[in-house]
Each structure stands twice: as C-alpha cells, then as structure tokens.
C-alpha cells in the first residue's frame, strides 16, 4: 500500500481507531478535534504517545479554516470526516473536495437518508446506522 497523508477530523471512537490503524499501517496521519482531551483516545492502548509514534494532533473546530490548514489539509491525500455531527461532516467533506481538491474524501453520516442522497451526489459516505439496520435485519431474518 502506498504511503499517503490521511487527515482525520473528529477523534471520537471511530476517528481515533481509524487514525491508529492508519498510522500502524505506515501512513502519515494528522488528527483534528475540538476537544484537547480526545488526544487521550489516540494514546490509549499504545506503547508510546501518539506524537512519539509519528502522529499529528491539532486542536480546533472542523469548520475553522486556520485549524484545517494547521492540520495539513493542503497536503492531505485522504480526508476522513468523522465528527459527531452529520452536517458538519457533510460540509467539511465538500470543502475538502471542492476547495482543496483532495482525491479521496470519506464522510461518516449517521442518518441513512442523508448518507444515501449525498452518496448519489458523488460523496463517499459511511453510514453506521445502515450497517446496524442491515445486521439486525439479518439477525432477525427479515428485510432484504
């Protein structure tokens, strides 16, 4: 796998896990989150601190242009929008696409309807709710 620069906005359970996996896989990883304490999630379960392992961490809100620039959005090859707000993710994903021309942009969207519609518009969306629905339906032997 080619080494790429991955920018992850939102270091909750999903964002921090993906960040750690990407760093372990040898990629360059930068994480942006508005909560300084979310850094702990990046350190947890690791033998060294996030920075010692080579990761970057920036504190700032997702829509703040200065924060995105500081986190390295101009160099990013891959952009992951994984804050806890669907609309925030959809807006910053489009900024990453349209303003910064990032080749691969992925947004987490909890609402299946919005995830589906924006996917139709050409945005790569991941919808955890839809996964849960599908799994429950399979477990119950109902639905598709």
């Amino acid at each position, binding site marked *: 796998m080619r080494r790429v620069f991955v920018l992850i906005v939102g270091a909750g359970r999903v964002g921090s896990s993906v960040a750690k996996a990407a760093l372990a896989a040898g990629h360059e990883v930068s994480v942006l989150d508005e909560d300084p304490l979310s850094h702990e999630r990046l350190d947890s379960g690791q033998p060294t601190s996030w920075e010692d392992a080579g990761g970057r961490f920036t504190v700032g809100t997702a*829509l703040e242009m200065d924060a995105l620039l500081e986190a390295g959005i101009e160099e990013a090859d891959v952009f992951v929008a994984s804050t806890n707000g669907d609309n925030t993710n959809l*807006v910053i994903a*489009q*900024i990453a696409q349209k303003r910064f021309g990032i080749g691969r942009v992925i947004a987490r969207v909890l*609402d299946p*309807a*919005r995830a589906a*519609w924006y996917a139709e518009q050409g945005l790569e969306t991941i919808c955890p709710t839809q996964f849960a629905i599908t799994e429950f339906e399979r477990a119950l032997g109902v639905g598709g």
Partner: protein
Amino acid sequence: MYVVICGGGKVGWNLARELIEKDHEVTLIEQDRRRYLIIEEELEHAVQYGDATELWILERAGIQRADLVIAVTGDDEDNILICQIAKEKYLCERTIARVNNPRNLQHFELLGIQPAVSATDLILRLIEHEVPQYGLVHLLDLPAERLEIIEIEVTPDAPAASRRVQDIDIPDGSLIISVLRAGEGFVPKADTVIHAGDEVLLVLDPGLEDAITAQFAPNGGAPRAG
C-alpha cells in the same frame, strides 16, 4: 407564496409571524420540543416539530412545493445543508441562509449557498459607517456585477483636497457620484472643487480601493468623532 422556515429562534419565529401577517403560507420547523410547544401556542399548525436537516421532516413540511426556503438555525452547517438539499434535491429555486459566524461565509460561498445573511456582518458594516476607523467605507458591494459604491472622507493632506473634480487623478473604472458637505449631498460637476472634510461617494470596479484612498485619504484618514 409558500415559505418553509427552518429554525424557530428569534429570527425564525418573527419572520414566520411577519410573513403570515402578509398573507403568505408558512411552515416553521423547530427541533427543540419545549421551544416548539411555546411557538405552537401562537402559530398553531404553522409550526412543525423536528430536525430540519432530516429529509422526511422537510418532506412532511412540504418542501417540494415551497417557493422559498429560509434556513435560520443557530448552526451554520445546518443552514448550509438545508439550503443545499432544498435547491439540489427538491429543486426549490429560492433559498436564504443565515450565517451565524461571519468566518463561515466562505463556506456558504464555496457551496453556492446564497444569499447568505450575516447579522454580525451587517452590524459591523453599520458601525463602520457610523464610526469609520479608516477613510474608506463600503456602502454597497455587488461582487457578481463587479461593482461597488464607497464613501471616503477627504483629508487635508489629500491630493484631491482643494482640487476640481476634473483635475483629480482617479483611475479608469471609478466615478465620483456624490459629495456630502455640511450635512448636504449634491452631485458634483467637473468644475466642482473638493474640500478637505467632504465625504465623497464613488462608484468603482472592485480592486481600485488603494488608488482611491491614495487620492482622498492617503494616510488612512483619522477616526471621525462620533
């Protein structure tokens, strides 16, 4: 006209009230249950409960037949999303978005959300007009038409001071349209002499501000007494 208003804060509620008064059909969408119940006592069926960024909530409010969608929630992301979905999914031709944080205006512009109205920006403009810190004040910007109207107070050390309009060296693409002197405005002629202390209104192509400032208030202009 059928208007869907998203966000029942002070702006949304008052807009709804005014539009209903003008005999428009209005649906206001508010996601906070308590706030919704308060508004419902006054607006009754014209207010609906729900998150206006959910497609089924918008559909229940009849967004498909809306002539105008106004997004005035306290969240800029939500306002962007609502207008984008209204326009691109439901083909609503007219939207108006509120910008809460003026720094987010660039995101609205990038995604083609307009008009985007920022109360903070409007008030800032008014403050600049009342108490200009700099010599040059923007009165009107029409970026799409590439036109602006500015006001500038002539400083005593300005090249334009005590000169006739025809002798003032202003760049092509700018024109003096009015002079305010001693509280009265008039349209100057070619031989009108401009005095220090005059407030001069110019119409110009964007980007000529520096050349204009150099002629009328080269040192930025002193703050005017309130």
